[in-house]
Each structure stands twice: as structure tokens, then as C-alpha cells.
């Protein structure tokens, strides 16, 4: 791993335990919880606070070692909005891929955040320098639901309130280098559909 940018001290940094919310109204309607509405309310009087989007980034090298650690650690209950690879050195070898996983702490319970080679569409071939927007594993409900809430309480390894590491895995070693950025909402904690 490279130096962890999240551990550095920035000028004028302000850190909250989060999640951070903002809106011109959030406590104006008693007993309002977005699903239970006390009577009828004009839209202009509804609480309108939303969640702040956060991001974490890490530098990765093309390594075949399974589930290699990264610098990204997501808070419990996070919803993932998007994942981006900035490839600064093209990936080489037989496979030019990079798969990202949630690591719940139990080896057999990895949850794939990106398309898994051979099991879905859209796994980008990182054979050129550039920016790649990565989708969840198309057609795989369990892995798509990991984006909705990384702390899905139906998973066998679920522990309430535990942060979850993100790990990387390429099929083979190579010369590839990139920056992985995950945009997420901490503490959204969406319920199961």
C-alpha cells in the first residue's frame, strides 16, 4: 500500500463522526420519519435534509495475491454511489483486471463490489491509461445489494456497527497502477427491500 491519504493532517481540516446532513428544515414536523407522515403537509414545509456524499481513495498495484488489503475502510451502514479507477499505468499480463471486495472479516463471505471475471458483465479491461467508471456486478442480486447497504443484516457475518475493509484482487501480477475512489454515504443504513 502507498501512504494512506486519510491519515494525513490537512490545513483547516474539520472532521465529524457523521453522517453529515444538511437542509433548510429537518426538525420542523414532529413524528415525521419519511415513512410515517402526521396528516397532510405542504411540500414547501416538509423536512428536506439530505446526506453529504463522502469519498475515500487508495493507490493500488496490479497484484495476483487474493484479497490484498487497501487503505479504504467504509463506515457501517454505508451506501455506495459510484466507484472510479484512475489508471496511471496500464495493466499488463494475460488478464488486465481489478476486482474490489468488501471484507467482512470472514474469508468465505467476501462480497464483490465490481463485476467478477466470468460471472457478470462490465468488468473493465484496464489496458490503457484513463478513467474507468465501474458498476456493480450486473445480474448478481447479492452483490448489487452490497452497494445499497454494505452492512446487510441478512449476511451470516453481519455485526451491527462494524466498519468494513475494502480489498483488491487482480488475476495476475503486472505493471498496472491506479487510484481507486469509492463515493459513499456513511450511515444511510437502507433497510432490506
Amino acid at each position, binding site marked *: 500500500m502507498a501512504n494512506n491519504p486519510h491519515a494525513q493532517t490537512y*490545513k*483547516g481540516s474539520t472532521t*465529524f*463522526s*457523521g*453522517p*453529515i*446532513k*444538511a*437542509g*433548510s428544515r*429537518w426538525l420542523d414536523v414532529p413524528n415525521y420519519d*419519511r*415513512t*410515517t*407522515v402526521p*396528516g*397532510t*403537509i*405542504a*411540500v*414547501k414545509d*416538509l*423536512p*428536506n*435534509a*439530505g*446526506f*453529504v*456524499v463522502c469519498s475515500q481513495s487508495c493507490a493500488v498495484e496490479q497484484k495476483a495475491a487474493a484479497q490484498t488489503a487497501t487503505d479504504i475502510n467504509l*463506515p*457501517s*451502514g454505508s*451506501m455506495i*454511489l*459510484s466507484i472510479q479507477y484512475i489508471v496511471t499505468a496500464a495493466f499488463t499480463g494475460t488478464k488486465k483486471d481489478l476486482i474490489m471486495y468488501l471484507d467482512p472479516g470472514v474469508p468465505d463471505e467476501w462480497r464483490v463490489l465490481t463485476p467478477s471475471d466470468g460471472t457478470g458483465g*462490465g468488468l473493465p479491461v484496464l489496458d490503457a491509461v484513463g478513467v474507468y467508471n465501474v*458498476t*456493480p*456486478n*450486473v*445480474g*448478481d*442480486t447479492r452483490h*448489487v*445489494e452490497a*452497494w*445499497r447497504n454494505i452492512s446487510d443484516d441478512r449476511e451470516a457475518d453481519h455485526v451491527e*456497527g462494524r466498519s468494513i475493509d475494502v480489498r483488491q484482487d487482480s488475476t495476475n501480477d503486472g505493471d498496472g497502477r491506479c487510484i481507486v475512489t469509492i463515493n459513499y*454515504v*456513511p*450511515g*444511510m443504513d*437502507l*433497510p432490506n*427491500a
Partner: protein
Amino acid sequence: MSRSTFSGPVIVGVDASPTYQKTTDRVEDNPDWGFVNMVQSAAITETYDNRTTSIVIPNKSTITRVSVLVTTAWSGTTTLDIGTYWGEYTGPDVVVTLGADKDDLVNNLAVTVVGMVVAGPGDTDDLTGSDIDNWMRMPKPGETYDNDRVITYDTEGTVASEGVGILTVEYCQAVDLSAIA
């Protein structure tokens, strides 16, 4: 998990430069504050009719992204309209007609496969009239009801089926870009 709530908009930067003059100052002296990107999400299902969500977008916000995380694919009519509502609100998933525009933001977004679907040019290039301006400023300039809007969704067609997803709207609160548009 604790929570910090602000009235917003939340703006972050290092240099305020209260004496900034665009034509004369150096770039390194310019103010560098930016708006924090905000997000609200709501569960939706494959039902027909135009229905409310619990998403409430503050007045004059700029919409930065609309997406649907599809966890069960739509199987009947497989496209969604995403619009706004400004009438009396009684809760999420309520059918609304008056005081609503069902394709204020997105028209015919395909939700046929489990995965992440992000609204793009093909879903917004045939919006009615100047509705694209709703992305620049919610609601668009000149609207009679110029205030907050509830986000709505409408599965095209007349038959409900098993589709399930999370509708997410990302925005910058109260930017009001109409001044530079």
C-alpha cells in the same frame, strides 16, 4: 452512529478572499470554496401510476446525478419516468396527478437488469419544453410554484410487477445556477 445536521448549504474551501476581483487577482488568490454534494434515496417498486417518494429536494438546488440501483429487475413495462410533485403531501408511494410533472427530470429510463442504472443523455434529451432546466435549478426558473419539490416515479404502463430498486438523487443544495445559465 452520531449525526451532525446543518441548515446548509454546506460549502467547503480554504481561501475566502473577501477582496477578490476576477479581472485582476491571481489564480492562487481566488476563493476556492465548493458546494458539498448531497444525496437522498428512497425504495421504489414496479407499480404503475405516478407516485411520490420521500425525497424532498430543497428549492434552487442543482441536480448532479439521478440513479436507480436495481435489485430486482422490472419485468412488465420496463422504463421509468422520474419527476416532481408540489401539492399537499400525505406520504411516500401515494399516487399523485394534480400538482405533478411525471417527467420533470428523466424520461423512459430502462431498468431491465439487476445493477446500477444512471440517467444519461438518452433519458433526458426528449424532456418536454425546457424541463432540462430542472437539472440546472430545481424547479426551473419561471415556475409558478417556486419552492421545494418531492421526487416522483412512474413505471410506464398499467400493470404492476416485481421490480424493486433504490432511487437516488444527488444534488448541490440551493446553488441557483440560473444566474450564469
